[in-house]
């Protein structure tokens, strides 16, 4: 493709987006210049290695991507709201369901969860940062560059259009000749490397950096689920890395890993994709389980019921998650033995998941429940997620799956798993940990609007899909005739999606309102919580803890509060060792993004020239002997006095 052909032309919707993107970019640059914030942005955010700031950047990107993915969803709902509509043509519909899926899973769910993990996990284990702060920044920037590369596809060169699963042979060069699927292969690859590095980082952080006295069985549940999630990331993401690499080779260099010509096998793509794809479901849902555990224990004013069985279930889910991948393609026509074995392993996952559901219910039992907004999300999660789980067991039976496979029933099922399991969890986490990030609460009243609109809209949007699915409507169908009788169901669903969107708008308004008007004097522990992150100031100081706490039992902070031992002795203060900011991560990620962009368009000479930037970054990094700096005791004392009053 030559330079003058890369702008996508001919579609008024896309043309409007191009103009909007251009104007927004100019507006943002003008605004930052006018406010003289470039230096501040660079030194406080772009080069930061602070896990809390990186977490916040992940969360901001995740919310933006939620908007993008949500608009895709609304367009799909508009197109199918009545029989025979022509809001989008078939090609455009294909592109939109593809980007909706990829963005919602990889660029919305992942960064929101990893963002919360970044903010919370080091604080929860009493550490001052993650194990490799600079690598952490690199992870973020790789994710961000990958997400941006994927997002420009619809205005530059054309979107991927073979579904978020991009099955071969459709996704191969023969049937999808444009650059769209190159974006898929390369943008996800870049973001995926970032995720893999995050996984390694958190495994090491949790293994090595827990506060003294915090044994395995004293770790907060969110730390446990983040740990197990990180292990699954390290186990599963390399499979996708390789699969995407094969895809890139097939598309760019004419190899035949997944095309039947020269002995390749398209089913190998499905096999590798789901070897990663199924664990991926648990990568996004396990941290969410941890978030709910913290929220439920805090607002029921009880310790978590069945802590040990919870840990065992999480580990069990992680183990089983690697053994179920074939249930995504029973219909490839496999032997009875294969399908039976994978039906069994799939149904077995319902056991540890059920254990967790009952643990939450028993934690609630006889608790003094406070209906805060984050608690409402946790309470709504239990029934909604159970619907998703039970329909999952229906789909797990290979024989029955031949009826449900690739129908809207499946679509409804995974939205009932992923929206309560991930989105509700992230909302609960945002309301819960917002004071820890910013020093004020999100407004509870607007929060309730957000909650009710979103939950009602969610159920209205996705419940009808179960019924049209059972009635035979296949997924990814861009139009249907009046005689199918689905019009009423899908019209109802489209109205639901508008309410869902209104719920999201309420969240955005809540963030805006709370930034401007919310009271700033909420103290360090506004929810009377149980875990270590609430022992330090809100927002947490950049060094996290002036003195690393000694942990004596589970929910240590709760017991320390009872014994009034949360104070700080001046004599205990010692200089704190902190890492320096670095320009390396953003530089390296940008260089990789540039190479990726050239590879998408198959401009190999430019790609080779741009890759010099990567080599320079790597070499400079190897000879970087920066050992960080120390915060002197005076400075610590001053900062601690600010929120504690006088020190003992």
């Amino acid at each position, binding site marked *: 493709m030559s330079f003058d052909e890369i702008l996508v032309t001919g579609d008024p919707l896309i043309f409007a987006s191009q103009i909007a993107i251009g104007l927004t970019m100019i507006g943002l640059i003008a605004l930052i210049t006018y406010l003289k914030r470039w230096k501040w942005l660079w030194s406080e955010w772009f080069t930061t290695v602070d896990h809390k700031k990186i977490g916040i950047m992940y969360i901001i990107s995740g919310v933006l991507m939620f908007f993008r993915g949500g608009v895709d969803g609304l367009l799909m709902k508009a197109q199918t709201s009545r029989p025979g509509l022509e809001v989008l043509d078939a090609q455009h519909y294909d592109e939109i369901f593809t980007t909706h899926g990829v963005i919602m899973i990889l660029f919305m769910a992942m960064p929101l969860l990893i963002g919360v993990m970044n903010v919370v996990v080091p604080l929860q284990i009493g550490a001052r940062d993650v194990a490799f702060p600079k690598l952490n920044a690199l992870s973020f920037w790789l994710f961000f560059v990958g997400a941006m590369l994927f997002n420009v596809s619809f205005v530059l060169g054309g979107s991927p259009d073979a579904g978020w699963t991009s099955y071969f042979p459709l996704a191969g060069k023969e049937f999808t000749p444009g650059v769209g699927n190159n974006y898929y292969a390369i943008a996800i690859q870049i973001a995926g490397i970032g995720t893999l590095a995050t996984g390694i980082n958190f495994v090491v952080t949790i*293994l090595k950096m827990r506060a003294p006295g915090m044994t395995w069985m004293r770790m907060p549940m969110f730390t446990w689920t983040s740990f197990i999630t990180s292990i699954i990331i390290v*186990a599963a993401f390399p499979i996708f890395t390789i699969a995407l690499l094969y895809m890139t080779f097939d598309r760019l260099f004419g190899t035949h890993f997944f095309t039947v010509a020269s002995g390749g096998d398209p*089913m*190998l793509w499905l*096999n590798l994709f789901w070897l990663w794809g199924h664990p991926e479901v648990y990568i996004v849902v396990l941290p969410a389980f941890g978030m709910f555990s913290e929220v439920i224990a805090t607002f029921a004013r009880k310790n978590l019921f069945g802590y040990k069985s919870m840990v065992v279930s999480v580990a069990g889910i992680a183990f089983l998650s690697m053994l179920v991948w074939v249930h995504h393609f029973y219909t*490839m*026509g*496999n032997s009875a033995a*294969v399908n039976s074995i994978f039906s069994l392993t799939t149904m077995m996952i319902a056991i540890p998941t059920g254990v967790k559901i009952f643990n939450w219910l028993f934690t609630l039992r006889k608790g003094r429940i406070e209906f805060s907004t984050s608690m409402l999300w946790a309470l709504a999660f239990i029934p909604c997620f159970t619907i998703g789980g039970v329909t999952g067991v229906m789909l797990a039976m290979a024989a029955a799956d031949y009826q449900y496979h690739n129908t809207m029933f499946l679509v409804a099922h995974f939205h009932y798993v992923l929206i309560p399991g991930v989105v509700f969890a992230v909302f609960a986490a945002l309301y819960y940990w917002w004071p820890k990030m910013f020093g004020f609460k999100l407004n509870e009243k607007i929060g309730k609007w957000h909650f009710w609109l979103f939950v009602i809209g969610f159920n209205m949007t996705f419940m009808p899909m179960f019924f049209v699915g059972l009635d035979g409507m296949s997924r990814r169908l861009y139009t249907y005739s009046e005689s199918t009788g689905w019009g009423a169901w899908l019209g109802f669903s489209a109205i639901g999606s508008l309410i869902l969107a209104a719920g999201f708008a309420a969240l955005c308004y809540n963030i805006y309102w709370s930034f401007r008007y919310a009271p700033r004097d909420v103290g360090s522990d506004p929810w009377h919580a149980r875990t270590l992150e609430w022992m330090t100031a809100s927002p947490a100081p950049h060094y996290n803890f002036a003195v690393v706490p000694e942990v004596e039992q589970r929910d240590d902070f709760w017991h320390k509060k009872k014994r009034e031992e949360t104070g700080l002795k001046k004599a205990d203060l010692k200089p704190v060792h902190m890492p320096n900011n670095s320009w390396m991560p953003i530089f390296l990620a940008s260089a990789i993004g540039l190479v990726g962009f050239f590879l998408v368009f198959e401009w190999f000479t430019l790609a080779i020239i741009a890759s010099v930037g990567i080599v320079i970054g790597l070499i400079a990094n190897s000879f970087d002997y920066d050992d960080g700096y120390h915060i002197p005791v005076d400075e610590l004392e001053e900062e601690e006095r600010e929120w504690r009053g006088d020190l003992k």
Partner: protein
Amino acid sequence: MSTQKQHRFPWNHVIGFILSIALTLLAVFVAFQTDFSSNVVLWIIGSLAIFQALIQLFLFMHITEGKEGPVNVINMIYSVFLALVIVFGSIWVLTSGHAAM
């Protein structure tokens, strides 16, 4: 962390790096430039891959250093288990039933 670390020349890494590249090129050579049957080629590059993994473990991942014996053992067992599931699971899934080529 002490700032008094000795900056010894990292011979292990250099040797590992060169060996990794050499083994990869060797695999390419065996696959493209020789006349072995595809079965023999598979066995050769499979063995090279295992050798490659050992290089990673000993020269880059410092498997012999550190005090976390049990953690390392659990890690290794889990990794081997996963590798077996992925390789033999894939072969089984892709060669049984109607999918058999």
